[in-house]
C-alpha cells in the first residue's frame, strides 16, 4: 500500500513534511486569535472561529503538529545514525506516522466543532488521546527494537534523550489526560489542577525539550566537524534534567491553594534547573567554539544556534518567574505568553527547523530546494520571535503593573490594545515564514532545485553535491 510504502527514512521524511504543513495551519490559527484580541467583533459570531475554540487549536497544532512532528521525524533519523542501524521497521514507522497525524486532525476538527475537555494542552477528546498514546507507543517499540539490534554498543546522549522523551511523554500524557475518565479527561478539584500542570509542564519539559536537545547534540558536532566536548557532561545534564524536571509542574500554580511543600519543591526545583540547562549549553558551546563560521553558513546549523540562544533565555527567565515575588507582576498576563512562545517556538521550534533543514537533504540525497528561501524564512522567524517577545513582555509588564496598583482588569484592556495590534502585525511574519517554509520543504521532498541555485552550485562545485 502506497501510504505504508517501505523506503529508507520514509518515516522521518513524512514526519518532517507533515510538520511543515501543520506549521502553516498553526500560524493561521494564531493569526485568527491575534485578530480576536485586536477586534473581537470583526469575525462576527461564527462558531468555528470563536477564540475559545481557535486558541486551543493553535496551541495543540503548534505543540504536536508542527514542533512535535518535526522533532519526532528528526528523532527517527538520529536514532539510526548514532546507533549505526537502520530503523527496525519503516512500515511500523509509517503506521505510527498516520496514527499520529490522524489523531492530531481528529483532535483539531472536534475542537473546532466545540468538543473540548477544557484543560490546557489536553483539550483533545478521548479518541484523539488514545491515538496519540498509540503513536508514541509504536514509535517507542520501533526505536527500542532499533536499539536492541544496534551495531554501536554505546548509546550516544541523543538516543538517551529520545528514549526519555518517548517514555515520559507517554506517562504524562496518560495521567495528565486522565484517560481512565474518557468523558471528562479529568479528575476533580485541586488534585486535577496539579495533575493538569504536571502534564502541561511535562509536555514542554519532557516532550519538546529532550527531543530538541537530542537534535542539538546531533547537529552541533556535525556542523562544527568536531567531537562533542564531553559526553560525560552531557549525561550528567541528562540525568539531572530527569530528576529535576519531573516534579516542578506546581510552579504554574503558585497562586493557588496547593500544599506549601509542593510549592517549595517547585520553586527550588525551578532554580535548580539551571544545572542541567547549563551543562547542555556549556557543553555545546565548547564544541562550537572557534567554529562559529560554519554555523553561520549552514542553514540547519544557524537555526539550531538561534534555538540554543532562545533556550538560554527561556531557562533564565523560567527560574526568575518561578519566584513568587516576581509572579505578582508576571503571572496570568502576556509576560507568560512571551515565555511560552520563546520556549515552544524560539527554542524547540527553531531547533526542530534546524534539524529539519540539516536532515532533509541527507534523506532525499539532494540539496534543499532553495537555501535562499530558507534564509528568508530564518530572518522572518527570528524577527517575528524577537518582535513577539518584545511586545508581549512589554504588554505583560503594563498589565502586571496596573494590577499591582489596583486597576480592575477591564480598565487595563485599553492600555494593552496597542500591543495587541503590534502583535497581530508581527504574527504576519510567522505566517509568511511558515508559508515559505512549507513551499521550500514540499519542493525539497519532491527533489526539485531552484534553477538559479542549481546553476550556482554547478559553477562552484562542478556538479550538484
Amino acid at each position, binding site marked *: 500500500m502506497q501510504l505504508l510504502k517501505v523506503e529508507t527514512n520514509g518515516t522521518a521524511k513524512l514526519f518532517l513534511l507533515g510538520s511543515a504543513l501543520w506549521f502553516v495551519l498553526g500560524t493561521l490559527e494564531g493569526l485568527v486569535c491575534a485578530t480576536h484580541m485586536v477586534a473581537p467583533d470583526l469575525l462576527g459570531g461564527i462558531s468555528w472561529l470563536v477564540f475559545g475554540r481557535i486558541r486551543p487549536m493553535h496551541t495543540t497544532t503548534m505543540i504536536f503538529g508542527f514542533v512535535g512532528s518535526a522533532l519526532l521525524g528528526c528523532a527517527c533519523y538520529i536514532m539510526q*545514525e548514532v546507533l549505526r542501524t537502520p530503523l527496525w521497521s519503516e512500515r511500523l514507522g509509517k503506521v505510527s506516522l498516520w496514527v499520529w497525524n490522524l489523531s492530531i486532525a481528529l483532535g483539531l476538527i472536534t475542537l473546532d466543532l466545540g468538543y473540548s475537555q477544557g484543560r490546557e494542552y489536553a483539550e483533545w477528546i478521548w479518541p484523539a488521546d488514545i491515538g496519540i498514546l498509540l503513536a508514541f507507543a509504536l514509535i517507542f517499540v520501533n526505536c527500542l527494537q532499533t536499539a536492541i539490534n544496534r551495531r*554501536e*554498543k*554505546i*548509546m550516544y*546522549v*541523543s538516543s538517551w534523550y529520545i*528514549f526519555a522523551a518517548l517514555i*515520559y511523554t507517554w*506517562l*504524562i500524557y496518560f*495521567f495528565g489526560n486522565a484517560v481512565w475518565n474518557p468523558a471528562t479527561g479529568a479528575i476533580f478539584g485541586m*488534585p486535577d489542577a*496539579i*495533575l493538569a500542570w*504536571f502534564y502541561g509542564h511535562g509536555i514542554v519539559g519532557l516532550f519538546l525539550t529532550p527531543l530538541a536537545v537530542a537534535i542539538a547534540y*546531533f547537529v552541533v*558536532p*556535525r556542523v562544527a566537524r568536531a*567531537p*562533542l*566536548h*564531553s*559526553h560525560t557532561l552531557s*549525561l550528567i545534564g541528562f*540525568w539531572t534534567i*530527569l*530528576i529535576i524536571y*519531573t*516534579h516542578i509542574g506546581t510552579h504554574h500554580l503558585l497562586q493557588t491553594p496547593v500544599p506549601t511543600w509542593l510549592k517549595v519543591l517547585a520553586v527550588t526545583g525551578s532554580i535548580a534547573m539551571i544545572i542541567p540547562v547549563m551543562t547542555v549549553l556549556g557543553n555545546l558551546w565548547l564544541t562550537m567554539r572557534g567554529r*562559529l*563560521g*560554519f554555523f*553561520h*553558513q*549552514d542553514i540547519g546549523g*544557524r537555526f539550531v*544556534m*538561534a534555538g540554543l*540562544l532562545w533556550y538560554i*533565555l527561556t531557562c*533564565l*527567565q523560567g527560574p*526568575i518567574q518561578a*519566584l513568587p*515575588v*516576581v509572579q505578582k*507582576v*508576571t503571572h496570568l498576563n502576556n*509576560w507568560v505568553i*512571551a515565555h511560552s512562545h520563546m520556549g515552544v517556538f524560539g527554542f524547540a521550534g527553531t531547533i526542530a527547523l534546524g534539524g529539519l533543514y540539516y536532515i532533509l537533504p541527507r534523506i532525499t540525497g539532494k540539496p534543499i530546494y532553495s537555501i535562499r528561501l530558507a534564509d528568508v524564512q530564518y530572518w522572518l522567524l*527570528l524577527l517575528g520571535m*524577537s518582535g513577539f*517577545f*518584545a511586545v508581549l513582555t512589554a504588554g505583560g*509588564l503594563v498589565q*502586571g*503593573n496596573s494590577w499591582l496598583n489596583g486597576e480592575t482588569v477591564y480598565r487595563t484592556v485599553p492600555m494593552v490594545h496597542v500591543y495587541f495590534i503590534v502583535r497581530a502585525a508581527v504574527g504576519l511574519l510567522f505566517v509568511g515564514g511558515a508559508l515559505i517554509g512549507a513551499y521550500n520543504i514540499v519542493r525539497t521532498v519532491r527533489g526539485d532545485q531552484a534553477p538559479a541555485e542549481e546553476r550556482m552550485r554547478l559553477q562552484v*562545485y562542478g556538479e550538484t*553535491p
Partner: protein
Amino acid sequence: MNYYAGWLFLVVASLLVSIAAFIWGLRSGQFADQDRARYLPLSKDLLDEPLVAAGSRKRKTNAAVLLLIVLMALAAFAAALLMSIKDHQIG
C-alpha cells in the same frame, strides 16, 4: 493520601523508570568508554561534504542580531525583577 494518588503514582513511576534505565546503563557499560562516545554523531559521509564557513559580513550581522536579542531579553528580566522588588519593599 488518596487525594494525591494519581500525581504520586506519576512521580513514582517516572522515578522508577529513571532508576531502572540508570542501572541498565551502568551494568551494560554505557558509561565506560566516554571518550569514544564523543565521536558518535560524526560519520564518514561528512568527509565528502564541502566545509564552508560564512564570510565575515554574514557572521557579524548574525552575531549582532543575536546579541541584540540577548540584550533585549536581559532588559526585560531586569525590569520584571525591579518592579517586583519595588512592590515587595512598598508592600
